[in-house]
């Protein structure tokens, strides 16, 4: 690692999108910042898909390096920076799991393994997001949730899912479409508007 003796830089005030803009200028510290913001979620996702630590590390590494190579093509009007980055990692994870046919089985239910340690603040934010998304998932009709989970966490294509669930591809397609549309709606809903107070999430 190189050193930057003159001035330690702080990225704390920059949005994720601004950090990606710096990554596009080959700024390695910005890449480190991006990893510090999303590395944990990315690894959790890759591990859920791949269920193998070594492969999960590979997927995260390839995803971040894809971000490093393609940051200048990132378009903030198309996606949030976090979404863009996690898409890159997810795509690598899915590519890897499809190559590892033998590992293909049901995606694990919510991991029983507790997430230990880590900084309290990050943990609080992640926990908040996790609970919010899990709550939204629980509200989906079972078949829609199943389609989303098998596709996103299991890495199955729509045709594989159709075969697996003994349904026409059109049905699977509709379940994924309806499920994702409903999830989008649920996530956009403010939580408990009537009693809503401005609160900090940590």
């Amino acid at each position, binding site marked *: *690692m190189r050193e930057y*003796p*003159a*001035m330690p830089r702080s990225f704390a*005030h*920059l*949005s994720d*999108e*601004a950090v990606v*803009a*710096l990554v596009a200028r080959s*700024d*390695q510290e910005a*890449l480190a910042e991006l990893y*510090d*913001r999303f*590395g*944990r*979620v990315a*690894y*959790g*996702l890759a*591990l859920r898909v791949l269920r193998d630590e070594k492969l999960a*590390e590979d997927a*995260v*590494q390839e995803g971040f390096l894809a971000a*490093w190579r393609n940051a200048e093509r990132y378009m903030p009007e198309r996606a949030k920076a976090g979404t863009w980055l996690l*898409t890159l990692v*997810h*795509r690598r994870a899915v590519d890897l799991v499809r190559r590892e046919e033998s590992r293909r089985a049901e995606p694990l239910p*919510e*991991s029983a*393994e507790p*997430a230990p340690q*880590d900084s309290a603040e990050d943990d609080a*934010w*992640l926990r908040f997001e996790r609970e*919010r*998304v899990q709550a939204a*998932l629980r509200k989906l009709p079972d078949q829609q949730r199943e389609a989303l989970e098998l*596709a*996103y966490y299991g890495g199955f*294509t*729509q045709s594989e*899912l159709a075969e697996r669930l003994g349904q026409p591809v059109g049905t699977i*397609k509709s379940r*994924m*479409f309806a499920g*994702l*549309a409903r*999830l*989008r709606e649920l*996530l956009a809903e*403010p939580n408990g*508007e009537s009693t*809503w107070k*401005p*609160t*900090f*999430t940590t």
Partner: protein
Amino acid sequence: METDLHDLTAAYALDALSPEEAREYEAHLARCERCRAELASFSEAAGALAYATEGPAPPPELRARILQQAQRERPNVAPLRPRWVAPVAAVAAVAACVAVGLGIWAATLSNKLDRRTQELGREEKVAAILAAPSSRSISFGRGVLVVTKSGEAALVVNHLRQPAQGKTYEAWISSGGAPKRAGTFGGGKVVTVPLEGSVRPGASVLVTVERSGGVDAPTQKPFLSVQS
């Protein structure tokens, strides 16, 4: 069968297409504005699924390995000072000239793109305020207020929940008299707000929750108050 391809947006956002299907859909995407818009919001929803997972933290070596590999691929020039401040100003100046020259064209840009550009513009403005040598920082536990000698100021708040639907956060500058509007903003992990108006020594910066679009005078008790 273009109509069938529209239906693939969700599957594409979930990475649930075979490579051939994905290529076909991408070709369609280039021609279909409706699918591009839909894909953007579907991708946000699919990306949220990443946050529903839980597990152990990645091994610490992974970070170092990624950074080493990145450097091997494309060594960067060590930034000994925040080199992005000057280029940003230069880019802004060029952009301003271009905007004047192409005013009519610029007016046709989509609102959405404008808004995103403005958001990035805010970041850059905050960056310039933070980088100004004369800036003073006033920490307040949940964030920091940074004020330059000339009174330009930026508020940085960490971990602020999104306001309820139909609501916004609104900042105010109070120098004794009636508080003056200083801009509206949403929540987020790190919220950066360049304040409109100048903050003189002794003035307070307040934040209230107001209806979307903001109001002319605060209607709520401030939940944040920082004295400069």
